[in-house]
């Protein structure tokens, strides 16, 4: 492996790059094995080991570089391997496929068609990365190196212009110029609020204090968002570099990265990256022979959603209960241990090095007039291609869901997209063309949030979804302020009443009124945004609420209390299958005679409905 050197100058960076290139000259092929958390769960390491063995067998070990990369983004089809320089994408791999891949592709120089990506729309195999819709429509700034470079190899990060931005900032720019550049780029926080990053930095820079801190918020608690995790695991040095530039800009010499305990792999890889950076002298004292000293410490959370809120997070870092503080004073004035503190989210930090290196003008060209740059979305739910995607801000929702995401599977219709998690709202199909930017989303009562984008198909009950989120906030409310602690529980109870068919029209009005009270009176962002899922579904799907109350029906057939299974006499052939699978034995009837469900005993599990081969059972 590489010998340790202390990097002190631009020359040193170039030397590392040259050394890296020389070391890799011998390789004819590079094979990238996606080792993101999702692919690891899909057993990509077994695939990698099999590949290694096959290369050995074929005597190609010194001609092929095998590289473990971070998340490629296309989590649904893992394990994934990309063969460079050909740019061929192989997916859904098994260890036993590796012999074929090595023999046919590497030895025989032909593409192994049957292991390539199968495009469900065209029914054809698409071998090249550049032709696959999922990748074609994306623009990667933050995730440019994630899934491309070896996350554990600091040399490769440096060889791809890594740590040049911090060098440039330290040697060519004053802290004020750095802040101005980030300001001109128009970078807004990617973690939720969308607050301009330069504002926070300037406030912390101007605040008086002998000690200042930078905090990297990696407490990605929004259910449905996993981009911060992917970036920390796939390109930890990019985050470290962004954090360093922030430290220089505000005058801090210490950063704390607060990571959720649920992300052990991210902690492991970030820890290793920090150690490597220290070894190279990129963290420590007199970085690049300047007066800039800096170090990074990792803190692990303990499972509290509210700790994603900045003041709650600060309390948690101080070893206390993660309850939010009254603002003002803002963290930029009095944050961690009462000192001026800048808190930004992981993805925000991922934008910093590219902005400094390529300039604000370049960055501002991407995106819309009011929101520059890209946004990373985590696609999940009822969508064909789940995974991580990065697109220019302002890309229409339809493009993200249909072109990149491959649309809703099983021939079902798109009903809505839920964005922003428990603080966000939903975008109904009428607004399918909406450009995804901060202002548009806020206007319709949703929010960008951290970028979790859950696609919901026609079989989703929107009242049930609202109830799901409220159950979450009731559970995660820290209890410090009454509007949130008691208000969210009352909201949940009202929703429960409605989904059980016991609601009245008055309850819907009460629900709405209570939402506004909670929004206006809660202490922190959690409570202020907790009613959003209810308000947003009320706004776009009020008729569904009314159907639950008025007709005692759940149009999507989800709410158990409002639904019954009925056997259609004319379609039932009397095959007896349903009565055999019924767990409570409530279906009766003789062979070849129409069967009947005893509604008093039925537990509505749906087993009969799923098994019936003659579509004779319907949900009402």
């Amino acid at each position, binding site marked *: 492996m590489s010998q340790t050197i202390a990097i002190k100058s631009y020359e040193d960076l170039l030397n590392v790059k040259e050394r890296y290139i020389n070391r890799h000259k011998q390789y004819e092929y590079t094979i990238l094995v996606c080792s993101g*958390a*999702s692919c*690891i*769960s*899909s057993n990509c390491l077994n695939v990698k080991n099999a590949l290694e063995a096959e290369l050995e067998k074929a005597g190609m070990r010194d001609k092929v570089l095998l590289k473990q990369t971070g998340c490629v983004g296309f*989590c*649904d089809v893992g394990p994934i391997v990309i063969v460079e320089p050909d740019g061929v994408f192989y997916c859904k791999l098994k260890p036993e496929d590796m012999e074929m891949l090595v023999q046919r592709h590497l030895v025989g120089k032909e593409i192994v068609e049957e292991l390539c990506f199968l495009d469900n729309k065209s029914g054809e195999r698409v071998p090249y990365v550049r032709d696959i819709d999922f990748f074609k429509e994306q623009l990667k700034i933050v995730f440019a190196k994630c899934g491309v470079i070896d996350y554990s190899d600091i040399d490769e990060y440096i060889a791809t212009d890594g740590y040049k931005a911090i060098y440039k900032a330290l040697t060519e720019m004053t802290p004020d110029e750095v802040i101005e550049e980030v300001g001109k780029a128009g970078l807004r926080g990617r973690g939720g609020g969308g607050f301009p990053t330069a504002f926070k930095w300037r406030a912390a820079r101007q605040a008086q204090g002998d000690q200042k801190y930078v905090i990297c918020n990696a407490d*990605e*608690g*929004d*259910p*449905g*968002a*996993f981009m911060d*995790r992917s970036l920390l695991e796939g390109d930890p040095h990019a985050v470290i570099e962004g954090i360093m530039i922030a430290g220089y800009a505000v005058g801090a010499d210490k950063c704390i990265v607060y990571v959720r*305990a*649920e*992300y*052990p792999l991210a902690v492991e890889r970030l820890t290793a990256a920090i150690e490597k950076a220290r070894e190279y002298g990129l963290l420590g004292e007199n970085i690049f022979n300047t007066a800039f000293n800096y170090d990074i410490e990792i*803190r*692990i*959370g*303990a*499972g*509290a*959603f509210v700790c994603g809120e900045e003041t709650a997070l600060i309390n*948690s*870092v*101080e*070893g*206390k*209960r*993660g*309850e939010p503080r009254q603002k003002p004073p803002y963290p930029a004035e009095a944050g961690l*241990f009462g000192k001026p503190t800048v808190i930004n989210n992981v993805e925000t930090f991922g934008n910093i090095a590219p902005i400094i290196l390529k300039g604000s003008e370049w960055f501002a060209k991407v995106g819309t007039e009011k929101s520059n740059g890209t946004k990373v979305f*985590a*696609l*999940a*739910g*009822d969508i064909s291609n*789940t*995974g991580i995607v990065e697109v220019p801000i302002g890309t229409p929702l339809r493009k993200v869901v249909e072109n990149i995401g491959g649309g809703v599977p099983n021939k079902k219709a798109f009903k809505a997209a*839920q964005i922003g*998690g428990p603080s966000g709202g939903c975008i109904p199909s009428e607004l399918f063309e909406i450009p995804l930017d901060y202002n548009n989303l806020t206007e319709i009562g949703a929010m960008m949030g951290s970028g*979790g984008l*859950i696609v*919901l198909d026609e079989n*989703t009950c929107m009242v049930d979804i609202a109830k*799901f*989120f409220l159950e*979450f906030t009731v*559970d*995660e409310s*820290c209890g410090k302020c009454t509007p949130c602690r008691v208000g969210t529980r009352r909201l949940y109870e009202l929703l429960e009443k409605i989904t059980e068919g016991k609601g009245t029209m008055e309850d819907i009005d009460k629900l709405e009124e209570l939402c506004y009270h909670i929004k206006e009176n809660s202490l922190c962002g959690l409570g202020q945004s907790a009613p959003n899922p209810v308000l947003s579904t009320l706004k776009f799907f009020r008729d569904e609420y009314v159907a639950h109350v008025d007709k005692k029906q759940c149009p999507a057939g989800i709410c158990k209390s409002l639904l019954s299974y009925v056997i259609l006499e004319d379609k039932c052939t009397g095959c007896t299958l349903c009565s055999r699978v019924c767990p409570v034995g409530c279906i009766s009837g003789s062979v070849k005679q129409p069967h009947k469900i005893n509604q008093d005993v039925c537990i509505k599990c749906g087993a009969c409905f799923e098994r019936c081969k003659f579509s004779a059972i319907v949900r009402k």
Partner: protein
Amino acid sequence: MKEVRECCCHHPETKEELYEALNQVLDKYERKESNLIQILHMTQAIFGYLPEDVLKYIAEEMDLPLSKIFGVVTFYSLFSTQPKGRHTIQVCMGTACYVKGADKVLNEILDKLGIKLGETTKDGRFSVQVMRCIGACGLAPAISIDGDILKHVTVNMVDDILKRYE
């Protein structure tokens, strides 16, 4: 650090050894209040959970009121004051998993084990918890057993999965 999952009375390590390990943790984190959460994480890894006696000991060592430590322990969902089973099943109930039917998987697991959420089976084999998104949304519905993530879990798979863990 390897997690010690059994109650200390059955465990081969003696009480003294466990406390010795705890002292090392306290030394490493300099008994500072700001390190309390990290200390509790390590303590839970040593003892398998956070027994009351141990919390009292930490309170004395760190010169903090026990009420304060108890307040922190009960605030965070990953800390447990109850012993856990040999295997911990965590069912992800994030939005993506919920939309994909995680609630059905959870009910099946609880039915099969005959326990309620948060409980441990009588034979000490399994504990079942719910997680708020483990960030494996691309693999929904996902469950985690002892930290290994199992993807696209269906009700029919539950039986086989449970059999793999003794």
